């Protein structure tokens, strides 16, 4: 089994804006995420959580410092490399962002088909399988409009997981869910993550999740101020 850290960050700084409006969002971040870990990232609004998540998620370019993702140094990475790296990741957003005109199965198939060479039949089977794992085997041909909020988020989880990502990045995945649905989603992520050796980095304000995390990082004013197991 590969024991190399999934994420290795050293001296990472990041700025927004130009000239006098330039503002530093991250200061000298050092961070290692081990394979299979379930890490929660907390912090007040504007603390830099989202910036850090988007940098790890290859949605922004590294400006200063070192960021190695799955063994790949992302310093100076071009758009093509960032896009290719994103295919190895899973994303879950606060809003489910499901395609309203596609069924649950079709939405999840899109997650599988991002990997070139995956045949429709294979993507279809994979989508049904993962929807079964998240408890939606009987909702595969439902449009998002006919699903509850929790079910939609579970479809979004299935879409993120169907590509078998090595790293899952989740941004407030339980924010719009009631207590039971939130608990279900977190259990699901932990269970599947553990079975697949998937690393999870989850941004949240939801205190209900904290006792389920392997590690809790707290970010304030662009700096990691606490790192608790």
């Amino acid at each position: 089994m590969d024991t190399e850290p999934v994420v290795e960050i050293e001296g990472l700084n990041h700025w927004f804006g130009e000239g006098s409006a330039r503002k530093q969002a991250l200061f000298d971040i050092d961070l290692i995420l081990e394979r299979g870990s379930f890490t929660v990232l907390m912090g007040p609004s504007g603390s830099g959580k989202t910036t850090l998540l988007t940098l790890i998620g290859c949605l922004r370019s590294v400006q200063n410092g070192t960021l190695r993702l799955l063994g790949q140094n992302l310093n100076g990475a071009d758009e093509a490399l960032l896009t290719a790296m994103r295919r190895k990741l899973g994303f879950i957003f606060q809003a489910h962002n499901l395609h309203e005109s596609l069924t649950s199965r079709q939405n999840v198939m899109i997650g599988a088909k991002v990997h070139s060479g995956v045949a429709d039949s294979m993507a279809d089977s994979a989508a049904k399988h993962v929807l079964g794992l998240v408890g939606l085997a009987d909702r595969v041909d439902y449009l998002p409009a006919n699903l509850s909020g929790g079910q939609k988020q579970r479809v979004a989880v299935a879409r993120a997981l169907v590509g078998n990502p090595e790293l899952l990045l989740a941004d407030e995945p339980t924010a719009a869910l009631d207590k039971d649905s939130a608990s279900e989603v977190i259990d699901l992520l932990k269970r599947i993550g553990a079975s697949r050796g998937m690393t999870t980095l989850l941004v949240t304000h939801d205190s209900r999740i904290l006792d389920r995390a392997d590690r809790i990082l707290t970010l304030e004013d662009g700096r990691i101020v606490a790192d608790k197991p």
Partner: protein
Amino acid sequence: MTRLLQRLLGRLPIGWLQLTHNRTRFAAALVGVAFANVLVFVQLGIMNSMGTATLRPYEFFSADVMISATDANALNDGGNVARQWLLQAMADPDVTDGAGLFIGNVPWDRGDADISLTTFGVDPARPGFIAPEIAGEISLLEVQDAVLVDRLARGLTREEAAAIRPQSPIAFETQGRTLTAYSTFSGGGGFGGDGYMIVSDQTFLSLFPARRSTAPDHILLRLRPGADVAATVLRLRELISDPALRIRSYADAAQEELTYQQTKRPTGIIFGFGVLIGVLVGLVIVYQVLSTDVADHLREYATFKAMGYGQRFFMGIVLEEALILGIIGFLPGFAVGATILTLMAKVTTLPLAITPSMAVTVFVGTVVFSVLSGIIATRRLAAADPADLF
């Protein structure tokens, strides 16, 4: 349909699913595209009929070379030509025969409406200058005030026209004379007149006393079989040095008039603009539908981008939508356009119809302008920044 498209595209037909998800909007988009198609079909149909109607009178005659006045941009336009040039042209070794062609408009009081017939005066002793389908009747014109009348002329019922025969001619008064129609030929209403009439040159001069036999509107020449028309035209231009004349092959004269009618006359320009407006309306409609669709799905597109899909994937979806709108929108546009042109043809007697080449041109044009609109609409995809999703 979804399965068929999935097979064709090799992926989920997201564009199709997206378009058909909101059926009302999809129907409205198709109506828009169909409307643009109808506009183009009707304008093209009129433009096409103008071309057919322009060339139609040239088909009544048979000649290799035509000598006209320099200002004769159309068959019934421009000054006269002195007959002496006909005699001069005959000096060329390849010119075998020549004839003057007189043209004027003759009104015919039809009771409920006056119609105007473009009337050609020809020498009935020279049937070689008349198209074969009419030449057989030309000897009838040797009788003074005898005419051949256009059976497709506006204001003349098909039953009335069918009754006109040498055994049962009809007489009518015009220009202070009584003309007798002994037979008919197939012409058709045009933009400059309601139909055509052919008379002898002598009858023509009786109808137009101000005209002189020595000054026809055009001179038609026939060449010996196998003669090089272009070379003969060049020789005739050397031989006949009058700068007030245009010496052209008969085919070139017809083509030049067609170009003149379509590009220089207001009617041609207006119909040309009509086609352009139809294309622009189609572009705007398809662009509006697609760009709204892209804007409505920006978060989903950003999600796809975050997942690792590239620009080609998104362009594929938008172009798929553009093609679907273009292809499906064409069908009702074709049907409605054809119906409108058929009705207009009945009312105007103009040769209005959708020809196969017109249908193919409009279909290809529809697909091209849909794809163009799609390409423009994909620019909005740049606004789908996945970093904004967090």
